[in-house]
């Protein structure tokens, strides 16, 4: 099995995440698309680690998972705080910083 296919799958998943972030309006779905992008990068790291037979790529993925967990907790708390203030999670209606 060629490594190119794993990298290609990772690229496709990352692109789907990018399209989701750019087109969706619901803040929670945008956040889930960001998780998808993080995960596709993890797939790239694991496939390079597998072809080099090196453990360091997998350790980087482990730390990326930890950061993703922390990011999910803080990000969802921010979404809850925004919902309390604005009663919406529609990112087009949260326009306090809009010029």
């Amino acid at each position, binding site marked *: *099995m*060629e*490594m*190119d*296919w*794993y990298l*290609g*799958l990772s*690229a*496709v*998943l990352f*692109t*789907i*995440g*990018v*399209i*989701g972030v*750019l*087109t969706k*309006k*619901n803040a*929670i*779905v945008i956040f*889930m*698309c960001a*998780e*998808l992008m993080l*995960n*596709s990068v*993890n*797939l790239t790291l*694991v496939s390079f*680690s*597998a*072809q*080099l*037979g090196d*453990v*360091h790529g*997998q*350790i980087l*993925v*482990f*730390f990326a*998972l*930890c950061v*993703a*967990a*922390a990011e*999910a*907790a*803080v990000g*969802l*708390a921010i*979404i*809850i705080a925004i*919902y*309390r203030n604005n009663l919406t*999670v*529609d990112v087009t209606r949260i326009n306090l910083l809009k010029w």
Partner: protein
Amino acid sequence: METYLFILFATLAVAAAIGMISSKDTVNSALFLVLNLISVAGIFLLLKAQFLAVVQVLVYGGAIMVLFLFVIMLLNLSDEEHMLSRFSVRYAVGFFLGVIVLSQLLYAIASVTGTLPQIHPEMEQVGTVEAIGDALFTVYLLPVLVTAILLTAAVVGALLLAQRNISDKVNK
């Protein structure tokens, strides 16, 4: 056998990702993301990264997605119809930029295609809990401790942010 399993998991992952960004219901999106993460865990297994496959299912598919589902339940977002609109400039620009990103990534991959080696034969020993734990608790001991501080800070920060009426308490 490996090729068939890869095709199965890859199709499942891509289909679940497309389902996630195209479904109208937020809960359906979250469940599609769980399916996607579990398919990627299967691909980790094909790459002989057993430890990361298990951690992926436990941490991502379990803990993080349960957190997402709890927040969706708390916010009770039932009126999603107005959030999904018909075709608009947003969609056109989003897909255009997405195609640009995809073509860049595939161009980068195509330049190295054929030169990449197969899965390393020693990979069976590298992806185990033993090998990763050995590296984590010797060479990477300090980063592991820093990660503990990071997670503690994240928990405290999340509690503080999600607290009810934080401004009222400050004003009193």
